[in-house]
């Protein structure tokens, strides 16, 4: 199980190695604090979503032979969870709510969360393993966000060639981060 966590966090990092959750990756990394906030929000929603969708699939959809409703049910559950989180933040942590602005509802369309819920099913994980996997993937997401936020600070203070200014340099930076991450594959024997 530790293996699954390490693989999700580093070796097969959801953003750097699997290209998921890129919209928020590019959009919310201009500030390290924002990245951390987003990372934790995604972690929270992912774990909750796993805890909700896994039993839903195995105890309701499968016995009733309704597996084909998986996509529909899972995305609706995630959308509902995000609404709940939004409501809770608005009431109890208005500062964070205001800071996150438009990106909070965008967590619904975060490919990473939905991908995790699907993979818990297709990889036949047990409930505990699914939770571990969800935490691992979200931790990987948080890591990638913070890394890029840090790199962006450096980019702001350097001279970037004209043709790479704006988004291209971010992807070039990510490409280099990816090369570094590929070195992690030696971690698991």
């Amino acid at each position: 199980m530790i293996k699954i966590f390490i693989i999700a966090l580093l070796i097969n990092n959801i953003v750097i190695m699997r290209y998921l959750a890129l919209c928020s990756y590019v959009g919310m990394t201009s500030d390290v604090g924002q990245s951390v906030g987003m990372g934790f929000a995604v972690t929270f929603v992912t774990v909750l979503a796993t805890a909700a969708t896994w039993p839903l699939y195995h105890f309701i959809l499968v016995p009733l032979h309704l597996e084909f409703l998986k996509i529909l049910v899972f995305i609706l559950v995630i959308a509902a969870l995000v609404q709940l989180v939004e409501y809770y933040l608005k009431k109890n942590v208005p500062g964070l709510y205001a800071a996150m602005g438009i990106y909070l509802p965008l967590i619904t369309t975060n490919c990473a969360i939905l991908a995790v819920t699907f993979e818990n099913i297709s990889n036949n994980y047990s409930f505990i393993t699914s939770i571990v996997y969800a935490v691992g993937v979200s931790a990987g997401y948080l890591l990638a966000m913070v890394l890029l936020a840090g790199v962006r600070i450096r980019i702001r203070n350097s001279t970037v060639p004209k043709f790479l200014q704006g988004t291209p340099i971010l992807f070039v930076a990510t490409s280099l981060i990816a090369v570094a991450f590929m070195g992690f594959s030696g971690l698991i024997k």
Partner: protein
Amino acid sequence: MKRLWTLFKQGIIYENPLLMLMIGLCSALAVTTNVSNGIGMGLAMTFVLLCSEIIISLFRKVIPSSIRIPIFIIVIAAFTTIIDYVMQAFFPELSKSMGVFIPLIVVNCIIMGRVEAFAYKKGIVDCVADSLGMGLGYTWVLVAIAAVRELLGNGTFAGLQVMPDSFQPILFFTLSPGGFLVFALFISFNIWLKGRMNKTQARRDVAKEDAA
């Protein structure tokens, strides 16, 4: 008819979802390791976009604004499931090679974005033109990126050996870092293209003013 053609062209070039609007990026990088996946993904996404826009446009007068998002999700999820099962049945190899990315079409920002901004407000015929334009715009960029990555990373194009035997494939391009790099260059090229188009447009505007 001219209006429809303009709408269609918007999606392909001027408002290309991937290059200009920069949405729907996730799947774009993951499935472009080879051209077959790129075409498959592009067409699957176009199918979901087209059907979703048609249905929502059809029922737009009936859908209350307050619950429109959940209804959009239901419609898009339904069509994503349909294309997923159709592909599993009739294109099993392609379906397996794309894995989790077909179901992920449901969270493709392009579809949600277009449905909200366009299908909810316009008539069916306009929606068909818009969705086909956006869908094909998405597809051609996918195929272009995939072509570069497959040719350089594997020496093949859609599985057919193109590069001579002496060509040593540069694995880098099929892997994550290569994907990001190729994408960065595509965006960069596109920003330049946009700049040129704006300059031409400005020149045309000035010429019109002079003529007037």
